[in-house]
């Protein structure tokens, strides 16, 4: 069955919504779209016409970085209103997805168990209860998902994964495509364009959550063995059931990307999709070292994120930085200042082999609707993904 462009692709473990639950989720999607297309542009106008001139009058110069802009904007009523509305939309999004998952919780758990034991696609799942959830995930619930990725409340819980898959679709307003796979698909398109003769045999996706970005790698490179790791067991249970339900074999295991149990040189492609900004400075260093250890000579690691602040207009960096302060993403800002050649060198790679690129979104159906702006609350609206990495 071909996914339809106007709705999320349905499968055996995607939570169903009653008419009212669906209407509530649709409202959040429209609410977020309205903020991104109607309110956010006015926030920039307010900065240009009111906040910036008044800063200049007071200080005799323009704001020198995103932090000064933020401090000046914090006192502006339009910005306060936009921010309060955006934060509220985020909370309503999680709530709208939680209600339907809570209602069909038992069914989702048993459906996932069934898919997991039948294994129609032939993927595997390996859980390790001894994996410690890192502090960067337990200190706050990342992007305000109540309970985060890892909280398990019932036996064989899959609720965080089920909530996440539906919420990501709404969060991105469908801009990641019916399968939420645009980050993976866009990265694959970049790989095929940049390394036309490269056919990876073993691929690893770090912090794979529901494996929404992992699946397209197996679809594009059917002869490759594709692995996904995550620290959160409920995400992996859901991911495994989802992969089996849609018929794509992926090997999933519960591991921290900072310390993996795979053999040295055992992968020729390692990827991560919006993982790094949810870790920490130390964790990122550890992850890069692991990538160096795990890659075979000639192998490539690619991390996918929203664009780095370097070279970006200060206002644009300020607005993209909104999540750092207002959406439980403490490492967001710092991770957008990562220097890829330096990070590569610290991990043992040749820094001259590091790269940065803006890869166009592969999901073209959303093209006309995108704002083409990188801004808080408009995930996937930029039309490009920022990739950085290094070849070993």
């Amino acid at each position, binding site marked *: 069955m071909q996914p339809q462009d106007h709705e999320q692709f349905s499968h055996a473990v995607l939570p169903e919504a009653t*008419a*009212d639950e669906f*209407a*509530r989720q*649709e*409202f*959040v999607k*429209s*609410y977020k779209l309205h903020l991104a297309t109607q309110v956010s542009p006015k926030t920039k106008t307010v900065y240009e016409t009111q906040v910036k001139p008044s800063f200049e009058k007071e200080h005799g110069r323009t704001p020198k970085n995103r932090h000064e802009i933020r401090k000046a904007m914090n006192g502006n*009523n339009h910005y*306060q*209103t936009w*921010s*309060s*509305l955006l*934060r*509220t*939309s985020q*909370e*309503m999004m*999680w*709530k*709208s997805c*939680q209600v339907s*998952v*809570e209602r069909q*919780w*038992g069914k*989702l*758990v048993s459906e996932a168990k069934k898919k997991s034991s039948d294994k129609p696609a032939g993927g595997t799942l390996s859980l390790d209860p001894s994996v410690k959830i890192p502090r960067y995930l337990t*200190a*706050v*619930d990342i992007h*305000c*998902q*109540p*309970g*985060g990725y890892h*909280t*398990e*409340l*019932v*036996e064989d819980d899959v*609720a965080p994964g089920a*909530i996440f898959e539906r919420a990501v679709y709404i969060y991105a307003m469908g801009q990641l495509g019916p399968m939420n796979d645009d980050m993976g698909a866009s990265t694959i398109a970049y790989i095929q364009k940049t390394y036309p003769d490269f056919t990876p045999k073993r691929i690893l996706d770090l912090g794979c959550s529901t494996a929404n970005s992992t699946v397209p790698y197996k679809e594009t490179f059917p002869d490759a063995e594709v692995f996904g790791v995550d620290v959160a067991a409920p995400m992996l249970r859901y991911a495994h059931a989802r992969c089996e339900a849609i018929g794509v074999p992926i090997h999933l295991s519960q591991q921290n990307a900072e310390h993996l149990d795979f053999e040295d040189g055992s992968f020729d492609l390692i990827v991560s999709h919006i993982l790094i900004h949810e870790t920490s400075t130390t964790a990122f260093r550890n992850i890069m070292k692991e990538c160096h250890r795990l890659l075979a000579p000639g192998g490539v690691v690619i991390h996918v994120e929203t664009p780095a602040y370097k070279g970006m207009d200060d206002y644009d960096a300020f607005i993209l930085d909104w999540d750092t*302060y*207002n959406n*439980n993403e403490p490492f967001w800002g710092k991770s957008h200042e990562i220097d890829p050649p330096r990070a590569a060198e610290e991990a043992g790679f040749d820094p001259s082999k590091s790269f940065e690129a803006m890869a166009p979104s592969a999901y073209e159906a959303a093209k006309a609707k995108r704002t083409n702006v990188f801004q808080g609350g408009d995930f996937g609206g930029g039309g490009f993904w920022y990739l950085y990495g290094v070849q070993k």
Partner: protein
Amino acid sequence: MPEELNPANAKLPKHSKGMRPQFFHDPTSDKLLAMVMALAGEVSVIRDRNDTLERLIDAKGLLDKSEIDQYKPSKEVIAERDAWRQEYLSHILRIVDLDAENMGRNDVSPEWQAVMDEV
């Protein structure tokens, strides 16, 4: 994981761990805005439901959807609706009504003071 929890009785956490930022000078404004948007969401849900009903009734041939737009309420229906809206508004504007009733009586009354002294 507590033994007794299962999908039939467990509750998902309703709030995310971490500090909720305050955007307005008065935190009440942040709360009010969140309430207004929740209400706007519920109105949207009702609107979608009503739209579904109209489309189903139309599809089943029970009623042409355009009849709803052409419907002219009778004098009696208008009176009923007027009355309903007055009642509805009095519920919503209760707080304003309360203010008005208290007008000029914001000083401590002798009766109130007497009770306070007694307790």
